């Protein structure tokens, strides 16, 4: 093995970029390499034994959760270590955002790195159960993990990790829904209540990319200074780029010749931004957050100059409303109301009062859902009102919308 090959391999999470099928789980359209257990051990060595002392390293490295919220891992760990109840650690592989494919790609290419990460987290925290949680229709991921178990010689009762298929739903990967499902309830979100019983069962949910990074960190290897991104253009692509790469450079690398008018950051429940405002920004979360931006789970949707952002937003909000868990008032009534206003605006049936009603409903439901799902729709709506303000003016004033290019979004009709 040459020195360069080793260096490259431990500095990145993926073995290479992939083109995904346009929608659904992260199934590659071309053959993609899966790292075997032998290759994995050859490259990284065996999984080290760890203890709760690993918390200090996790904290020192500043490891953040890569599911989209970027909560420091050390924060979750410290809470878990303080409490005494039986602990379940979940590797969240249910990538339910219809565009996102980075987690699916990672587990297809490097299942053993993720398995190591889960085993390390479970060992460090003294967990009683370790679970891999999958999106219900991700059959390839299940097969990949089962094959990986076989390579490790795990069979029958000796398998230390359970694989659970979650539902096929946008909210299937929501951490509180997973927590409820792993303790025997339905996989639906529920509002957080402060836990007072130190002996209550507890669940820690970590994204699979977070666990892969943990597996490197526990071996004393550096946390890769890269970011996994899923970008929707003519194809759906997953790429790994340095965090110092700008949004413009990412698109250039993916073959974009003409600048888009705007870009949706973070996926369906993301934030619209004007191209000129974000083209020069680095895809580095710690630099995006102060600008009140986030790429969430690393999703980018550039919007071509001749596409209608109002129409796309209406489709997205309708999708989010349809994916409600139908449990709480703000979601059950508020989301369809937002979708209705956006549909009226997109169809040029609305006027300025429609926009006022939209704004009023946004502020009425903000922060009041049982989970953050309605907040995703209000954030998307607010950013769309700002980003497409000029074009919205045309939609409500009786001027015809001349943007004809159609944007096909997976999951929406």
């Amino acid at each position: 093995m040459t020195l360069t090959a080793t260096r490259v391999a431990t500095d990145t999470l993926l073995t290479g970029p992939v083109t995904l099928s346009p929608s659904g789980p992260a199934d590659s359209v071309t053959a993609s390499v899966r790292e075997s257990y032998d290759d994995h051990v050859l490259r990284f060595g065996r999984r080290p034994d760890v203890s709760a002392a690993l918390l200090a390293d996790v904290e020192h490295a500043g490891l953040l959760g890569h599911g989209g919220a970027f909560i420091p891992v050390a924060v979750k760990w410290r809470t878990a270590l303080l409490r005494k109840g039986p602990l379940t650690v979940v590797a969240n592989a249910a990538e339910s955002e219809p565009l996102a494919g980075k987690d699916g790609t990672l587990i297809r290419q490097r299942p053993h790195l993720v398995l190591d990460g889960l085993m390390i987290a479970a060992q460090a925290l003294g967990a009683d159960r370790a679970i891999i949680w999958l999106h219900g229709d991700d059959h390839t991921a299940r097969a990949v993990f089962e094959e990986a178990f076989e390579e490790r010689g795990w069979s029958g009762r000796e398998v230390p990790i359970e694989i659970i298929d979650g539902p096929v739903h946008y909210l299937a990967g929501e951490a509180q829904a997973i927590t409820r499902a792993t303790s025997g309830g339905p996989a639906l979100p529920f509002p957080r209540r402060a836990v007072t019983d130190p002996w209550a069962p507890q669940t820690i949910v970590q994204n699979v990319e977070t666990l892969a990074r943990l597996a490197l960190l526990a071996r004393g290897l550096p946390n890769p200074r890269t970011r996994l991104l899923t970008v929707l253009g003519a194809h759906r692509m997953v790429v790994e780029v340095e965090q110092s790469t700008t949004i413009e450079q990412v698109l250039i690398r993916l073959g974009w010749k003409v600048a888009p008018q705007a870009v949706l950051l973070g996926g369906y429940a993301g934030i619209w931004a004007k191209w000129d405002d974000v083209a020069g920004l680095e895809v580095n979360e710690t630099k995006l957050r102060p600008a009140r931006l986030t790429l969430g789970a690393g999703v980018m949707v550039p919007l071509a100059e001749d596409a209608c952002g109002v129409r796309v937003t209406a489709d997205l909000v309708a999708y989010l409303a349809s994916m409600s868990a139908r449990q709480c008032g703000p979601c059950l009534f508020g989301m369809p109301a937002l979708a209705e206003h956006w549909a009226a605006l997109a169809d040029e049936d609305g006027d300025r009062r429609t926009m006022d009603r939209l704004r009023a409903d946004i502020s009425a439901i903000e922060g009041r859902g049982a989970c953050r799902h309605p907040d995703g729709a209000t954030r998307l709506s607010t950013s769309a009102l700002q980003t497409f303000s000029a074009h919205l003016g045309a939609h409500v004033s009786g001027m015809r919308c001349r943007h004809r290019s159609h944007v096909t979004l997976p999951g929406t009709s």
Partner: protein
Amino acid sequence: MSALQRLRAARARPTGQKLRVDPVVCEGIGQCAMAASRLVHLDRWGYPIVPTEELGVSDLAPAQRAVNSCPRHALWLEETD
């Protein structure tokens, strides 16, 4: 500081308590808004909007009334961290 200002300050003194609602359990019956009309408002679908900030001393009694009034036990007082 005048007597009135002192009284206002005393009534607004933070209590370390927050009024919370479980939106899953809540069915939009609206008793809470009747029990504490100054504190709890209803959205246009009839679901309660409770203050997000810590309650002041004078809010504590109406907040407790709102909690007690709910036939679904969807509201509770919680210590702020």
